[in-house]
Each structure stands twice: as structure tokens, then as C-alpha cells.
């Protein structure tokens, strides 16, 4: 437990933000992919500007093509379609419009200024329509404005010379976009939260502070699930409903764990001094449920259910009706003392919350299996 705490304390700021949002190094992989495309685009822009506009233009062609390819990749919001034909077509048309007009009016400020206002308006107006048009609107705005920033320093024709490599490399970038990286990262973050449960259950919080710390750890993992889901939705919108279902079950598991942690620590050996079976039945059930979550199988699930049923028997025994299954009429057994009654309530709550935990994790597993299948 101390290890987990100290690890959490050390995680802060930027490192924490990136680590929690990039399970499995998703962001680094995506960054490597975008960087490779941008580097190739810059080389293409350099060569194209050199060939079409002369030697001083090469570096400006590389800068314009590189920056715009990078921004286009960052602005991209893939649709649910398997193949990004529409995104590519929209981006290409946007580049043609933005860079085409930008290159044409770049050396004529009198024309460029009113055109800037029109392009700013149009670039935002298209947001009323579904993707990829909003993305295309941003690409038009950026390609036009960046061309105007470079215009005073570039020979005529550089911006136009960059259009071909831009279209080629943005198309390649969109086509081979590693969308599934984010889905896998999302699934990994759910798995990370799920895998933390058996350890929390085994260590077993034994006071209020420990319960709160345990709940905070699981909640931190739940927040990572939520963060990862935003990226998964953006890059894999076809499975957005499945992502939501998975977050829903993750949130349910987190809240069930909060209930369980809150109930389990209240069952103490001290309360059952004369009935050691009660506390040991609860501990056995905790261990069996932890095992069933850590290594799910029919056998482990069966063992957990048997262990949970044992708590029920212990409760029945302690309540003075051992083994009785028929309808009580209010005339059986001795009056329970306040202490015994409270201890029994805690025991019943533990049994209920452990059952809920087992069920919630089983539902989460089923959804995880469905999503893993869908992401292949």
C-alpha cells in the first residue's frame, strides 16, 4: 500500500498528465507517426518549391508544408467511416482554397485583407455541418493566414508550389492514421482500473483514512478512463457507443468498490470475539472475490459464490435462526443485542457489496471483451 501511495505522490504536473492520458505510450506513437509525415511533407515542400520557384524558396516551401501538414493532422476529427475518403477530399479542397487564394493574393495586401475577413467568417460558418466540414474550415483559415504571414518573405509561387506536397502528405497522413492506438489505450486504461481491484481487496483498507485513500486511487484510475475515452471517441467515433458503455461500467465498478471498501473495514474481529467464524467467513469471501476478479473462471466464480453464501449462513446462525429457510413469523430466536445487530448489519452489507462487486466486474469484463473484439 505504501508503494502505491508514494508512487501517486510522486506523479504530478505534466508527467502525470501525459502518463495518465497515454496508456501504452499511445501519444508517443501518435506523435512519432505525425512527425514522420510532417518531416516527409517538409522535404516534399522543399523539393517542390525548389523545383518550381527557385532556390531561395526551398526553406519557405518546407516551412509552409510542414506547419500546415502538422496542423491538419492535429485538427483531424475522423468520422465513423472505415475509410477516410470524405476527410481526405475535404482537407484537399480546403488546402486548394486556402493555399490557392493565399498564394494568389499574398503580394496584394489590398485584396488579401478583405479576403481574410471572408475566409475567417466562412471557416467558422461551416461548423453547422457535420465533420469533416468543420475540420476543413479550420484548414482553410490556417492555410490562408499562414500563407499571409510568409508572403512578404517568399518569392511568388512558393505557396502554390507547396499545394501538391501538402495534398499528397495530408492524404497519406489521414489514410494511414493509427486510430486504433487510442482505442487500445482506452481499453488499457479500463483494464488498469480493473486490475487494481484485487490488490485493493487483498490489502483491505482497515480504517476510514485507508478507505478514502483506496477510493481515491480507484477514482484516479476512473478519471484516466474518462480521459482516454475522449481521445478514443475522437479518433474512433464508430465505436463511441461502446466506449460510453465501457465508461458506464467502469464508473459502476468504482462506485461499487467505494461501497465495498466502506463496508468491509467495519467488519472487525473485535465485533465477533465469540464468533470467530463470522470474521473469517468475511475474510474468506474477500479473498475468494479477489481471486475471482484477478483470475476470472467458472471455478473461481463458483468458489466466490460459495464463500459469499457462507456469510449468509453465518448471519443466519448469529441471528439465532441457523439454517432456517422458511418464513419467519417474528416469534423465533432471542432478542439481538445492539452490538450483535450492528455487527450483523455490517456483515450483511459486506456480503451484498462483494456480490455487487463480483457482478459489476463480470459485466465490465463482458463489455471489455465486446470492445476488444470490435477494436480488432
Amino acid at each position, binding site marked *: 500500500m505504501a508503494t502505491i501511495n508514494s508512487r501517486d505522490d510522486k506523479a504530478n504536473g*505534466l508527467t502525470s498528465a501525459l502518463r495518465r492520458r497515454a496508456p501504452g505510450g499511445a501519444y508517443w506513437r501518435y506523435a512519432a507517426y505525425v512527425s514522420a509525415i510532417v518531416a516527409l511533407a517538409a522535404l516534399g515542400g522543399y523539393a517542390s518549391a525548389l523545383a518550381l520557384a527557385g532556390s531561395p524558396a526551398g526553406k519557405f516551401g518546407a516551412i509552409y508544408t510542414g506547419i500546415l501538414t502538422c496542423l491538419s493532422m492535429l485538427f483531424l476529427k475522423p468520422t465513423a467511416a472505415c475509410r477516410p475518403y470524405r476527410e481526405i477530399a475535404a482537407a484537399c479542397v480546403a488546402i486548394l482554397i486556402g493555399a490557392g487564394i493565399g498564394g494568389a493574393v499574398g503580394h496584394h495586401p489590398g485584396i488579401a485583407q478583405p479576403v481574410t475577413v471572408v475566409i475567417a467568417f466562412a471557416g467558422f460558418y461551416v461548423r453547422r455541418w457535420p465533420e469533416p466540414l468543420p475540420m476543413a474550415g479550420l484548414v482553410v483559415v490556417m492555410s490562408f493566414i499562414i500563407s499571409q504571414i510568409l508572403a512578404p518573405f517568399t518569392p511568388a509561387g512558393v505557396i502554390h508550389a507547396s499545394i501538391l506536397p501538402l495534398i499528397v502528405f495530408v492524404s497519406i497522413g489521414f489514410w494511414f492514421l493509427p486510430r486504433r492506438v487510442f482505442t487500445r489505450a482506452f481499453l488499457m486504461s479500463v483494464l488498469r482500473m480493473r486490475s487494481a481491484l484485487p490488490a485493493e481487496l487483498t490489502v483491505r483498507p482497515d480504517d476510514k483514512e485507508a478507505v478514502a485513500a483506496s477510493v481515491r486511487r480507484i477514482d484516479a484510475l476512473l478519471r484516466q478512463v474518462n480521459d482516454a475515452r475522449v481521445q478514443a471517441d475522437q479518433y474512433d467515433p464508430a465505436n463511441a457507443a461502446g466506449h460510453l458503455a465501457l465508461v458506464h461500467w467502469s464508473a459502476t465498478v468504482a462506485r461499487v468498490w467505494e461501497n465495498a471498501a466502506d463496508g468491509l473495514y467495519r467488519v472487525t474481529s473485535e465485533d465477533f470475539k465469540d464468533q470467530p467464524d463470522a470474521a473469517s467467513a468475511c475474510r474468506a469471501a474477500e479473498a475468494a472475490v479477489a481471486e475471482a476478479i484477478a483470475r476470472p473462471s467458472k471455478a473461481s466464480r463458483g468458489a466466490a459464490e460459495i464463500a459469499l453464501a457462507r456469510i449468509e449462513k453465518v448471519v443466519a446462525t448469529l441471528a439465532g435462526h441457523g439454517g432456517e429457510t422458511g418464513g419467519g413469523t417474528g416469534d423465533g430466536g432471542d432478542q439481538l443485542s445492539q452490538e450483535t445487530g450492528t455487527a450483523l448489519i455490517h456483515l450483511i452489507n459486506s456480503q451484498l457489496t462483494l456480490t455487487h462487486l463480483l457482478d459489476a466486474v463480470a459485466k465490465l469484463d463482458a463489455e471489455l471483451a465486446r470492445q476488444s473484439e470490435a477494436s480488432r
Partner: protein
Amino acid sequence: MSMGNATRTGLLPSTRLAIQAGVSALAALVFVNFVNIDRPYWVIMTAVVVMVGTSGETLAKSMDRTLGTLFGLIAGLAIYWVTVLIHVPAVVLLVIAVPSIVVLKFASYRLMVAAVTATVVLLLELGGASQSLILSRLVDTAIGAAIAVATSFLILRLPTRRPILETVDAYDTALAAMVHDSLQAVIEGRWSADIGTRVGQLRASAANFEPLADALRAESALIGGGDIARAALAVLPVLRGHADSIISAAQAAARTGLGAEITEELQQVDRQICANLDAVRTALETGTPQAVPRLDSDYQAIQQRLLPKLGEGARSRHDVVAILNLLLALRRLNHGLRNVMANLGKSD
């Protein structure tokens, strides 16, 4: 033009945003024509790209952009000087610069802008640009951001928060009504099929909520988005997940007939959960986290009332278990509300 006027014109949010962007670009152009600036389009670019939607979001993004530019300038100059000192070709840094922009995009908009600015500084240094030109990027960015903020406050302010808050409100009300009806059914010992329709209303609200939250996020220009959208996205799965378990637990509890014996306590739980739901709604509206009390004392009072039943036979014990199960379901909902509030606090 005030928000009221904008509402009367009936313009779509995208039209208002487009007009804002156009006016912001025009204002920036007018400004740069009056003042001699090295790179007039840095002002214009900032005046356009920080336009997000609501004036608050535009303000936040403008601050992020200006601060990010400041950090980027400092970092870019420092990195360049270090590379000169240790004789590393500065062009090598460009190889690191692009991945940094992409990775930092996922951390925050401010950090991404810092990485972009650091890259621009390196490019300018490699191109032999003067230090004053590099510093002018910061000044131009601040001017552009100020123009964008002024435009977003003065021209056709966008009520993008309103639709999402209305939907959250409808959802919140349906959830409170569902809890109230369920507990009332337990108190009366009679389950009504109408309560099931409450869950249907919840699902309908959730269905509306999702595209609205997405729309709000999509309207966040360039990268990033409003805290309200992220908070709302967190609200949805947390709250919806507990409706079904409350319904099924309450249905079983209603059959026990024990509700009549704990009427006062159940009504107190009902009132407290409604108050907590109101607190969440207020927090979403104001952006300020509110206190969401635990319900421990109410649960303990119910448990105390049920203690004698444990010794009254198996059927009584099973009835008590049904009530405890309902309490656990309600507890999960309340934990969920507390968790939402904690997330709201972190998003600030």
C-alpha cells in the same frame, strides 16, 4: 449587441461564431493598418483562432495562448542559446520540436502553443531574424487575444452553455423524481409501473445530453475544450449507471412492506439526495464545486430501526437485506454525485 438581442435574432451558434470570427479579423486588420507591426498576420491569426464559442472559453483560450507564447519564447531562446554554447546544430532541435507539439497537444492547449512558439523561435533564429521580431510575436499575440476577447464579449455572445445546462437540468430533475417515486413506493409498499417510465425519461435525457456535450466539445476551436463539456461528459456515465440498480432494489424493497416503518428516515434520504442533485446542478451552472454531504447518519438511523427485525426469522431477515440493498444502491448514487463534484473541482 447583447445576448438578449442575439437570442432574438435566432441565429445559430455557428453563425454567431462565424460573425464573431469575421468581426475579430476585421478589427485586427483595422488595428494593424493603424499601427506599424512587423508581422501583422500574427495579430490577425490570434484574433481568429482563439475564438471558441462562449466568451468565457474564448477568454480562457486567449490567456492560454498568450501565456503559452511567453513560455515558448523563453524556452525557445534558452534552448537555442544552449545549442549555440555546446555547438549542437540548431536544426537538430527541429527534429524534437514537432513530436513535442503533438504530444503536448494532449497535455494542454497552453503547452502546445508553447511548443509551437519554441519551434517558431528556432526557425526564426536559424533564419537570422532579429530578437525584436521574436519578441514582437508575444506582443502581437497578446493584442490579437485582446481583440478576440473583446469581440466575443461585445458581439453576439454565444449561449452554448444554455442548451447543455437545460439538458443536465432535465436529467437531474428526472433522476430526482425517479429516486422520490421509488422511495415513495417503498414507503407505501406498492410498486408502480409508472416509475419505469422515469428511467425511460432519464435515458432520453442522456441521449440528448451526449450529442450536446459532443457539439460543445466540437465547437471548441482548434484543440482542447471547455471545462463544462469535460465535466458534463463525466456526469453522464456516473449518474446514469445507478438508475437501474435503484429501480430494481426499490422494487424488491417495496415488496417487503418494511418501508412504512422507516418512512421518516426514507423521506430524509429522499430530501438529501434531491438537495445533493441540486448542488451538482448548481456546480455545473456556476463552475464552483459545492458540498455533497454523505448520507451516513440517515443510513445508520434506518439500520438502527431495522436491527430488531434481524432476529425475527428468515423472512424478516430477507426483508431487511432488501432494504439494505436499496440503501447501498442509493449510496452508490450519492458516491457518484460526490465523485462528479470532485471531478468538477479538478477541472477548474
